[in-house]
């Protein structure tokens, strides 16, 4: 039992061993955690084996083995601390982002969501219509074998002749020895086991798939108690890779470049599929006049908004934290609780409340101040309004963080400066602020990055308003992200691929800005070194 129990480097083991009791605690908790990891892995493995997901199983086994190795070897210390968060990060953040980014190279969106096979199925299903002049049958689902597994049969009753027939994939054959209820449904038939609704519902997929061939088409189920004679108006023909209309003979040929069946006259079938389109989404971002035109203006405002929101909340939060950072202020606890309230309220609800408070005729703000400002009607006032709302929502965050930071600064330091005869302001500027910045600069960068993409702040308040009369696509308070959302989801359905491409451009901008400011923080890290 030495200090190396906890996986520390062997070289550190030599000096006097620390109290053994604590090491045992360390060892036991470590063993427990690793045991738990293995237990979870085993628990997770069973369904994978059951479903024959061998790749998944291999990944699981490899991850578990790697974790066991990592925590049993004295090496790779940083990784020991990073592994838990990193694994979760990869699963639930990195993967979604990579997946989304990969859609930027496809036409993924409404009308192009699934595979070609799915599109063909959708086209054929949508084209099945009831054979003209035919009637609907009362139907009972039955089987010749076990209710759970036996081959399925439709017992259908002709509404006119009341003749009962049994239908399966081979066709219809008349039955005589049957009992029929008032509604015409078969309740018992010799040689068949009738399935009740519960039993039938367990075999739903088979029932939907069963088509009993008839001269005019096929009898298909419509629920569990009726059947109809239907015919597919369109069918996929593999030989020509096209969809053919069974009555008119018209064809629509598959176009793998756009992921749709296209007719001779250029008409497309609505149900398309997802195809890779290379860089066309990216070139579209650069050439689309709706995107490129107001881009610079939006970008400038976007920076303004992010800087003002971050800076404003920081200044207000810090000021407040400084003001209350004194044992001589009475009622500090009450102040703090009340001041944090804006952050405690659900932000989406409060954004909606603020929007209504800015209403020209009925809003609280014009009412309180006796003004008549059309807040969201003018560019400047709308921009001021959204920043004000962000200030309200965001200052408690900065207040809390700054309070925490102030507590961490040794009081002796600021007191020492006071004794040295420095003014309060001078002491703050020379001693407190630099120390605060060490802790808070990374936070300011991340806050900036968050606000740069603060979708809700705009979407739940102005929705981008005011819009110039001649351009309903880009408003004065639009951020790049809300603007993207409108372009990608506003017209002609959701265009995920295009949205992903625009997002990548925005992402690059944020990344560059953040990386540059991040480089400048290097010296801050070594403040104590």
């Amino acid at each position: 039992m030495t200090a190396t129990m906890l996986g520390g480097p062997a070289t550190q083991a030599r000096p006097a061993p620390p109290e053994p009791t604590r090491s045992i605690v360390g060892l036991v908790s470590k063993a427990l955690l690793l045991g738990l990891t293995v237990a979870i892995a085993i628990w997770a493995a069973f369904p994978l084996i059951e479903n024959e997901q061998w790749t998944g199983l291999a990944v699981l086994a490899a991850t578990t083995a790697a974790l066991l190795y990592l925590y049993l070897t004295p090496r790779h210390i940083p990784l020991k601390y990073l592994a838990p968060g990193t694994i979760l990060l990869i699963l639930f953040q990195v993967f979604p982002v990579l997946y989304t980014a990969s859609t930027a190279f496809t036409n993924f969106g409404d009308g192009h969501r699934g595979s070609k096979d799915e599109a063909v199925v959708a086209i054929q299903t949508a084209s099945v219509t009831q054979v003209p002049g035919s009637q609907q049958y009362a139907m009972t689902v039955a089987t010749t074998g076990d209710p759970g597994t036996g081959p399925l049969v439709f017992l259908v009753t002709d509404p006119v002749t009341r003749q009962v027939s049994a239908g399966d994939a081979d066709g219809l054959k008349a039955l005589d020895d049957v009992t029929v209820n008032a509604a015409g449904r078969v309740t018992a038939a010799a040689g068949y086991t009738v399935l009740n609704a519960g039993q039938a519902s367990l075999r739903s997929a088979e029932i939907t798939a069963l088509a009993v061939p008839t001269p005019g088409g096929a009898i298909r189920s419509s629920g569990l108690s009726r059947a109809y004679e239907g015919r597919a108006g369109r069918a996929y023909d593999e030989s020509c890779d096209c969809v053919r209309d069974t009555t008119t003979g018209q064809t629509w040929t598959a176009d793998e470049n756009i992921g749709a069946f296209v007719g001779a006259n250029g008409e497309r079938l609505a149900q398309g599929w997802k195809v890779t389109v290379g860089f066309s989404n990216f070139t579209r971002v650069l050439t689309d006049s709706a995107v490129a035109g107001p881009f610079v203006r939006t970008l400038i405002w976007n920076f303004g908004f992010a800087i003002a929101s971050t800076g404003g909340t920081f200044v207000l939060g810090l000021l407040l934290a400084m003001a209350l950072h004194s044992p001589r202020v009475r009622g500090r606890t009450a102040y703090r609780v009340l001041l944090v309230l804006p952050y405690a309220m659900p932000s989406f609800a409060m954004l909606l409340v603020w929007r209504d408070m800015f209403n020209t005729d009925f809003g609280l703000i014009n009412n309180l101040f006796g003004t008549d400002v059309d807040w969201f009607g003018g560019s400047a006032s709308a921009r001021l309004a959204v920043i004000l709302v962000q200030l309200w929502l965001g200052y408690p965050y900065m207040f809390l963080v700054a309070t925490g930071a102030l507590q961490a600064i040794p009081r002796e330091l600021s007191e020492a400066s006071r004794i040295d005869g420095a003014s309060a302001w001078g002491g703050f500027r020379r001693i407190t602020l630099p120390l605060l910045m060490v802790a808070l600069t990374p936070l300011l960068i991340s806050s900036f990055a968050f606000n740069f993409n603060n979708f809700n702040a705009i979407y739940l308040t102005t929705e981008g308003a005011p819009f110039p009369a001649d351009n309903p696509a880009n408003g004065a308070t639009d951020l790049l992200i809300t603007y993207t959302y409108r372009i990608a989801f506003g017209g002609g359905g959701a265009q995920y691929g295009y949205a992903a491409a625009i997002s990548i451009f925005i992402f690059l901008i944020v990344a560059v800005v953040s990386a540059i400011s991040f480089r400048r923080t290097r010296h801050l890290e070594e403040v104590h070194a």
Partner: protein
Amino acid sequence: MRWIQQVGWRHLVGVLVLAFAMVPIVFVFSAALNPLGTLSSSELVPTGASFGNFSRLFADTGFGGWFLNSIVIASVSSAASVFISALAAYAFSRRRFRGRRVGLLSVLLIQMFPQFLAIVAIFLIFSTVTDLWPAIGFNTSSGLILLYLGGALGVNTWLMKGFFDTLPRELDESATVDGASHAQVFFRILLPLVAPILAVTALLAFIGTINEFLIANVFLTDAGSKTLPVGLYGLVAGERNANFGMFCAGTLLTAIPTVLVFQLLQRYITDGLTAGAVKG
């Protein structure tokens, strides 16, 4: 005069910001008391006072259940995320390894991707998860907690790393010389020193989770599994403004657990546990 200079201005700042902070909240409060329950009023003083909206909230909706779900999800995920963040922050602040700064920047940037696009991928992941492991699939608190923990290495890590940076290195160096392992340095020396920031991060994570709407809305569809924001949004969605009174009442009640957590953590945030410790 001296009092004004040293204490008075503090109260002035406090009161001014308090006014700014409280106006919308008072507005919501009066709407919650208004039996007609509209959000369009331009009055700060309620036109009628009754607690009907509050009692209806509990009688007619699953509010109690939403409340409980939210508290469980927010408590567990904020506690776990603070722990995971602290581990990572220690590595980023105290250890020097290849890819450290790139890693630090990456955990921030990865969160910059718009969430409304990530929804598709979340469906993709959790459709499989639900099939294989229903216990952590859609409509389970555990699944949602896991999903939230994906963001544990993020802004909070940065925040904590910044604070680890402010602690003098001599502290852990001398402990190491005394024979402490890195785990002992982390758990026994550094963690107690950063208690204020642990408390702040816990609070921030708690608030972030309890107010999260976008993902919870698609993740939780079963009436019994919903959280406060999802349930509350359902009150006003598609309903035009009929339920705004109840909505406001619910919004106010949502703030209560946060305030309680804040009260609980306030001790750590403000007592300045570090003041003595850093001396050496």
